């Protein structure tokens, strides 16, 4: 949970989120106040009965009305067959046998995996170099990361259209100078979307990985050198294994970030590309007829993927914070 603070929009606080602030939710929160809680439990509950719970009700009402019930509605839609109107897996069978939906799932997974992997490699190098830099350079770089992590969605899509669209600045330059990669680049395809996704993964990934590097002690380098470890050994047998929980946690955040991204893709290709979020939305809001059943089943597929990411991330966040305590 800790790292996923910033999944969608601004990653302002992610530097702190991955580290101190949000690392606590599961482990740290309860421990401190355990004695007080025990003491309270012993005391007879004489003062207020149910009136003490009244302030909780508005929150409960809104959460039920706008979070839990809508979710239940989607899941319910998914299991009521479109044709048979009976409870069952009909919609899911349809989703997994229709080429368009199969393609959407495959494309979504593919674009998320590749953009997350490229993002993490660039972020690892950037975080490493930023960590080795003087505080002045590091702060300047972090500022750029924070600012540009907000540059996503529709504005980002528009900027890339100006840059690499059909009559984009780089496209025209590519034609003039005879650079085929730029001249023939097509933004309005899967590859084009991939370039955009990689762009918004990099600042987020770097902001999430940076704090992890502070757990690498400089003594390790000295110890490794004394023990005749090569630079390769030092990085691949000491640093990377040590950072693995943070790397995998960040990777799962990036993956789910790309999986659920909607605005960027919609602004570039509208609904004309087989991508899970685009297909889901077009079933509920659309030019075509509204299809709650198929949309619900697609939504459940996306929900399951996202929940899996969150669980993976939670697992690694716990591992990461545990590891740090030992050191």
């Amino acid at each position, binding site marked *: 949970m800790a790292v996923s603070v910033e999944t969608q929009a601004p990653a302002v606080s992610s530097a702190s989120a991955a580290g101190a602030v949000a690392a606590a939710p599961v482990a740290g929160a309860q421990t401190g*106040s355990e004695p007080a809680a025990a003491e309270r439990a012993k005391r007879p509950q004489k003062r207020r009965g149910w009136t003490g719970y009244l302030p909780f009700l508005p929150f409960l009402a809104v959460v039920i009305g706008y979070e839990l019930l809508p979710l239940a509605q989607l899941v319910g839609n998914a299991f009521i067959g479109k044709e048979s109107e009976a409870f069952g897996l009909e919609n899911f069978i349809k989703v997994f046998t229709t080429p368009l939906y199969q393609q959407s799932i495959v494309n979504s997974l593919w674009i998320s995996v590749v953009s997350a992997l490229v993002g993490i490699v660039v972020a690892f190098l950037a975080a490493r*170099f930023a960590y080795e830099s003087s505080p002045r350079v590091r702060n300047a770089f972090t500022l750029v990361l924070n600012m540009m992590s907000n540059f996503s969605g529709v504005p980002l899509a528009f900027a890339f259209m100006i840059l690499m669209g059909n009559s984009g600045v780089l496209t025209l330059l590519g034609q003039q100078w005879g650079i085929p990669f730029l001249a023939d680049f097509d933004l309005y395809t899967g590859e084009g979307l991939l370039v955009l996704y990689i762009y918004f993964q990099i600042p987020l990934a770097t902001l999430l990985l940076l704090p992890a590097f502070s757990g690498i002690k400089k003594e390790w380098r000295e110890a490794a050198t004394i023990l005749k470890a090569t630079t390769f050994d030092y990085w691949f047998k000491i640093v990377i294994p040590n950072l693995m929980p943070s790397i995998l946690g960040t990777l799962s955040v990036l993956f789910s970030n790309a999986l659920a991204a909607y605005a960027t893709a919609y602004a570039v290709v509208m609904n004309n590309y087989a991508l899970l979020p685009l297909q889901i939305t077009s079933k509920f809001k659309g030019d075509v007829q509204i299809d709650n059943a198929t949309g619900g089943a697609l939504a459940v597929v996306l929900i399951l993927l996202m929940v899996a990411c969150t669980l993976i991330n939670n697992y690694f966040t716990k591992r990461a914070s545990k590891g740090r305590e030992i050191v």
Partner: protein
Amino acid sequence: MSAKTKAAAPGQKTPLAAKIFLALVALYLLIPFATTLIYSLFIEWTDVLPSGFTLRNYAELFGNMTFWASIGRTLVLCLVSVVITIALLLLAMYVVVAVNRRLGRFMQFVCMIPYALQGVILSIGIISLYTGTGTVLSNRMMMLFGAYTILVLPYIYQGIRNALNAIDAQMLIQAAEMLGCGRFRAYVQVVLPNILSGILVSSLLAESIVFGDFVLANNIAGTNYQNIQVFLQANMARSSGLSSAIVVVIFLVVGAVTAAVLKLQQSSARKA
């Protein structure tokens, strides 16, 4: 030995390789926005260099009433939904802190769900539940405010919870109770003033999230209640000059909020 070590000590020089790599990444990240900014300031850009400096795009944008209307709507959405969320969470947190701690687990779980689900699922869930019910709940504005309230829940919850933990709210309330003060009064008069600055940072963060939202606004309200992002999307195909000016304005606003958040975080880190 220590001169050779890699960790950055204050005053240490940055290795050349690091400088080059970081500069390249920063350049890569800045190019799309820089291009948009230049594009918005010139009449045409078909050669290596743009030609014909102009502020025409901005003049047109600032003279456009639809633009101001969409800015106004966006600000209303930002302020109202964030204020609602803060109020709901502060009330609910009183129960967790002063009445029954066990509700904290439930609250944490519920507040973290929006992280995992994000905008697409949230928006279509709300549409499919309420559209066509013919009640006040099927009003697009109601749906939109509800959706934003849930969207910013994780961020504000995290901020309030961290602030409450930092001051040990339970102890403060117990102390106030011993001095003869009611629990709720203690919460309002002792605890709340102490966590205000903590809430401020997370609310600003939430504001910038609502400001930058396209998914919920487009899916739930669409053209009925255009926010700034939907306005941009609607203009993209029509006029690229105007759109580039909108992008610059959005970026500057969100950038200013981000800068404020960073500033506040730094000053609170220094205090701690």
